[in-house]
């Protein structure tokens, strides 16, 4: 029997006909991507509103009393969990992963479209369960996004009756949804690439999303298991995480469990989770920088290896979140070392981004502004990470606003800037229309400068020792009056940045209907998704024939070439030697 690769065999694609099968119960990866994107952004707006409420309390504790201390903890918890998992993870993998993987590798769809569709609907169920916790007696859980036991399930913690159960169930459902999607993304990248598309010709976006998905498939099990165990502790009275403890003057029935086990399990998931969010951002931003600087990405192979090495190392650094947990000090030594080692491949990536810009023909388009902004915020967030990775520096800074500033810079602002940049970048392909550039630039500058106004002062508050997760700071002697003024300033900046995001929504919604028709390849990009016959691409993506790939994704400004970019599916000219 002659060998025929699966991707070359005639696939029977049944095109949907009714409106429902086209846009609701759709198995088309592009529609699923947009469903994922809209749901994730909607729940993200909710989390943004929660953070605005928290900031109002912190900035004006005496003049405004909008929320109670319980609500403050509930909002802290829900803001963190939503932003990290239900917004960023879902948007990067479910949204961008779904949209870009099949188009960029030259496939007609994900390998299992039906399962892909299920993945979205199960994700939607997990979001509904999560949001439902706002409407149950006692409200959502206020345990902090890390859900540390014993306090997460003890009476007295807000939402200990219903909220915590709904949170744990929602996480378990989310993991089921992610697994169904993730298996699709990995299998598609490995097994369904088009003719000529080797692994080492994949655009870095695909490499980032692919590696992050593998991290997810291996890290989410830890969260699933700890969610199951905590649910049993809460509902059946088992003592996996619960030591013998006195609550409200009464001895509880718990005995002999290990709270620190939960911390280990949570961070065995939690640290790879940071890279589940960061690696897709790394990949997408590499493609944005290369395209808009009209220059090949510097050190492509090194960029790929850096992604893979960061992914592997991210599994052996988790306990750097636990220096103050009372674990053996020798562990701290080990985890500090691995943490600092991970800075090496990360720094390689940053240097390569900057070297890509070096002598490039930089077009300061809206996506490019966001991509360059990302380099700034990521370097700042990354450097404070090196501070916190060292045990002796971390101990005094633990649980202060320095930590809040650090992780918001590195995994809040940085990925979100990439999300905006990538949405603007692929918007013409997704909708067939162009957004308003001027409004996009206003959006960038106000957001970028505004986030610095929020997070830089937080580092200073951290050095002053201002603890995080406090509802109010009255009567704490070591905190000077000036810190209070700084808190007010942060709140003003935060509210300003939150309101500025209206520019983004107005822009993309208005442009969807009224924007000028976009060119099929407005940025002059080389990757396959820009070479489709139709814009937006139809169901099945390509015409009768799959595109063939003859070169890597970064042939920009090739000397002697006709244009300043050569699409991946353009065969080599006679005598031309392709790079990869």
């Amino acid at each position, binding site marked *: *029997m002659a060998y025929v690769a699966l991707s070359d065999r005639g696939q029977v694609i049944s095109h949907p006909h009714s409106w429902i099968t086209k846009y609701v119960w759709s198995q088309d990866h592009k529609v699923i991507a947009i469903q994922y994107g809209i749901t994730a952004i909607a729940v993200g707006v909710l989390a943004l509103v929660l953070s605005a409420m928290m900031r109002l309390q912190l900035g004006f504790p005496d003049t405004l009393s909008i929320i109670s201390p319980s609500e403050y903890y509930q909002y802290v918890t829900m803001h963190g969990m939503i932003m990290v998992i239900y917004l960023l993870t879902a948007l990067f993998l479910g949204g961008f992963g779904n949209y870009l993987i099949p188009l960029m590798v030259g496939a007609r769809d994900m390998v299992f479209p039906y399962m892909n569709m299920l993945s979205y609907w199960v994700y939607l169920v997990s979001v509904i369960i999560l949001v439902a916790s706002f409407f149950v007696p006692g409200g959502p859980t206020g345990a902090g996004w890390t859900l540390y036991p014993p306090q997460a399930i003890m009476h007295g913690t807000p939402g200990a009756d219903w909220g915590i159960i709904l949170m744990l169930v929602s996480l378990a459902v989310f993991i089921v949804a992610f697994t169904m999607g993730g298996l699709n993304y990995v299998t598609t990248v490995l097994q369904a690439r088009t003719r000529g598309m080797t692994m080492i010709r994949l655009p870095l976006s695909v490499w980032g999303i692919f590696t992050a998905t593998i991290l997810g498939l291996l890290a989410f*099990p830890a969260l699933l298991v700890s969610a199951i165990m905590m649910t049993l502790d809460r509902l059946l009275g088992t003592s*996996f995480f619960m030591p013998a403890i006195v609550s409200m003057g009464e001895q509880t029935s718990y005995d002999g469990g290990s709270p620190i086990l939960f911390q280990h399990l949570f961070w065995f998931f939690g640290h790879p989770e940071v890279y589940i969010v960061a690696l897709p951002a790394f990949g997408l931003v590499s493609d944005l920088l290369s395209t808009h600087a009209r220059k090949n990405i510097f050190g492509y192979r090194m960029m790929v290896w850096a992604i893979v090495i960061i992914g592997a190392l991210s599994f052996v650094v988790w306990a750097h979140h636990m220096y103050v947990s009372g674990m053996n000090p020798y562990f701290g030594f080990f985890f500090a070392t691995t943490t600092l080692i991970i800075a090496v491949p990360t720094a390689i990536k940053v240097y390569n981004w900057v070297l890509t810009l070096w002598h490039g023909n930089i077009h300061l388009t809206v996506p490019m502004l966001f991509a360059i902004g990302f380099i700034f915020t990521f370097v700042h967030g990354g450097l404070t990470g090196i501070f916190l990775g060292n045990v002796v520096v971390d101990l005094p800074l633990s649980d202060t606003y320095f930590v809040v500033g650090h992780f918001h810079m590195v995994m809040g602002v940085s990925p979100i800037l990439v999300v905006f940049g990538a949405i603007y970048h692929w918007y013409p392909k997704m909708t067939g229309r162009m957004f308003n550039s001027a409004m996009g630039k206003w959006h960038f500058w106000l957001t970028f400068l505004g986030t610095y106004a929020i997070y830089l002062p937080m580092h200073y508050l951290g050095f002053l020792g201002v603890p995080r997760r406090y509802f109010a700071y009255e009567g704490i002697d070591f905190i000077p009056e000036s810190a209070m003024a700084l808190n007010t300033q942060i709140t003003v900046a935060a509210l300003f940045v939150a309101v500025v995001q209206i520019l983004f929504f107005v822009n993309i919604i208005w442009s969807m209907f009224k924007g000028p028709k976009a060119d099929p390849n407005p940025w002059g990009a080389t990757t396959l998704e820009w070479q489709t016959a139709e814009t937006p691409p139809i169901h099945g993506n390509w015409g009768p024939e799959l595109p063939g790939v003859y070169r890597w994704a970064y042939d920009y400004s090739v000397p002697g070439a006709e244009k300043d970019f050569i699409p991946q599916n353009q065969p080599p000219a006679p005598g031309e030697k392709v790079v990869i």
Partner: protein
Amino acid sequence: MSDNAVSSPAELEEGVSGFTQDWTSDKQTFHAPWGKAMMWIFLLSDTFIFSIFLTSYMKVRITTTVPWPNPSEVFALTLFGHHIPLLLIAIMTFILISSSGTMAMAVNFGYRRNRKAVVWLMGATALFGASFVGMQAFEWTKLIVEEGVRPWGNPMGAAQFGASFFMITGFHGLHVSAGVIYLTYIAIKVGRGDYDRSNNYEAVEIAGLYWHFVDLVWVFIFAFFYLW
């Protein structure tokens, strides 16, 4: 889609150079059908779930301050006046491992396109699996009713014994039950002749992968829970 079975390309090289060739080739990295590749990746993820379950169990067993009940006494069966430790669990393990044998034979007959044999062997595998779950139900009932073991405590020692036991064997039992349903479904499709029409028995092999995995996991649960 008559030529759906994948055979390796003739020019595939052996050893390290073959490995490099695979990884740098276009179209597909592993010379396996999509479903099979996906099942392998899923099983890798599932391996992490069970590893973390077992690691957590070891951790709570080390942490707890109360002595751990002796498994060979708890899981003993009195038969004809003899007290035989681990008897039931030995039978269960034997049955589950035998079911892996029948599954492997079913996959083999699938390659030979022997429809009848595949249906019988898969049926036998599912039956073995169902009897495993049945015996597990018996074991649970005995522990709960006769020994008084509860997830939150038991008369023999550490409360975490019952908690870990019910959680881990329950999670594994769910896997076996799902496997029985899955095998039955595939066996019905084999019996209907679906795979003869497409000349493609890979679904049997993929179901086999899952089943062998569930058995392998049991070996670890058996070793760490019952023998430790």
